[in-house]
């Protein structure tokens, strides 16, 4: 899973590799902050900087190349 390819069991974790859902940086920020179904929310656990760092990392790794980085301010506004 450290390869970002997700995993499959009774349910699954989606792959992050070349993931088109990451195209919208706002969606990625919202997902990390609020979670979605099996994905837990991290909004209370992570600072604005940390959320931005996670989102920017995922969107520029695992064969993703989205260059419109998010800032801590973007995260703050999305909370």
């Amino acid at each position, binding site marked *: 899973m450290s390869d970002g390819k997700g*995993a499959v*069991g009774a*349910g699954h974790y989606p792959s992050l590799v070349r993931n088109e859902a990451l195209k919208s940086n706002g969606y990625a920020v919202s997902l990390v902050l609020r979670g979605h179904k*099996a994905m*837990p929310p991290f909004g209370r656990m*992570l600072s604005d900087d940390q959320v931005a760092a996670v989102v920017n990392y995922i969107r520029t790794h695992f064969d993703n190349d989205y260059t419109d980085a998010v800032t801590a301010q973007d995260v703050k506004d999305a909370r």
Partner: protein
Amino acid sequence: MLQEEPDDGMSRRDMLKLIGLTAGSAAMYQAMTSLGYAAESGYKGRIKLEGDPKGASVLILGAGLAGLTAALELRQAGYKVKVLEFNNRAGGRNWSLRGGDTYTELGGATQKCEFDDGLYLNPGPWRIPFHHNGLLDYCKRLGVKLEPFQQLNHNAYLHSSKAFGGKPQRIREIKTDFQGHTSELLAKAVKKGELDELVTKEDREVLLQALRSWGALDKDYAYKVGDLTAEFRGYAKDPGGGLGAEPVAGQIIGLSDILQSRLWLGLTSFTLYEFQTTMFQPIGGMGKIGEAFAKQVGDLITYNAKVTKIEQNDKGVTVFYEDAKTPDIVQKAIADWCVCTIPLTILSQIDIQVGDAMKAAIGAVPYASSVKVGLQFKRRFWEEDDVIFGGISYTDLPIRQISYPSTDYNSTGKGVLLGCYTWNGPNSYELTAMAPEERVKRALEYGAQIHPQYKTEFENGISVAWHRSPFTLGCAGDWTDEARKEHYDNLCQIDGRIVLAGEHASYIPAWQEGAILSSLDAIGRLHKRVLQG
């Protein structure tokens, strides 16, 4: 508290017998509750599914405690029952890892448990509160033998890496000293008249007496080193026999040191209702409960069945599933009704034909993160060197807890410690992200700060990170009050021919009692619906 014998000379038990005989069991239950006996958790005693279901069939999804309870009771009530289970064993999160077991987590890493015979790790639930009457009743019915689980051991440690030079402190010392200092402060305030507006004159005298007793204060209401405080907090040198046996009282830890250490945080968990004595564990591992259920209803279970789709119409329910080992072959199971206990993390990914309200509820509950590590050591050094027999040490290190086995006390030979138990928070996710052997390594490094013997006595370890569990994708339903308000009732309603059950459909999430009570409630309502035709 009620006195043992009412004034009219009739004992409480006699009175209950009388009520039971004349008014039936429902009235007796009401009376028992109001007199302080009986059901603490909402368990109403053994479920009675009266009336003929006329051969109706029920498909149960999931063979955890909720599914197993439903299977046992519905078959007994005359239903045709089938169970589909993703794992190759029954029990779900009720589970013990023992020597020879293997576990493959999401990400593909497979661990083989190398514990010696009789040693185990409970990756999921590991203790049973005395008021979880439903679970206790099933243990009794299924012949699962219990033993006391030590939650509070006064001689275990409270540890902060940032206080007392990183040296762990005995719970009895922190507890007694904290209680003593705060009692002394309060007594001073009372004597100075600072609480006169809040406490009546009559109560002030009694309050002072109480503080002296509660805080081990001397005749001048001071908390001081001496025989009296040593009787509570223990000694620097315990009393012995013969020459030179005179005890020596230990030094008291200062109030400011205790406050700043934050070790008082560790005292609260022992006082919580859900952790109060007496707690229990099954002898031989928590998994004994799932195994005992499987002896009763194992013939109904299809293992390795991965549910992919749940359909319903006004005639019945159709569930599509794959054999987890040969995923290409899709199979179908058909029944009149369905009790679905699949965790919401997974159910929210399955195509299920229910109304929008239930669908929204299914997608509204994230699951808590939790990591456990079991460590086998060559000898029981926590008993032999540190005089800790069972109980839990709490720490601010990422492992959070070390729990000592509540069994085989004072024996020679090996033992398994719970070397890490996280619940939510960043360090729980950090450990989850590591490879299993790395988690074991971290548990050893951190634990050695509390018990240096780790370095020489360690033999092998195993770890379970619940967000990597293929059959749950998380530990347990982590409801917020807002989500509960909006979605809980919608989650629990019968939707056509489908009803959900599990710890996630209870007010006792993460506890086995929640799974059982949820299941009993669900099948009770379902049975009524079936009888209505």
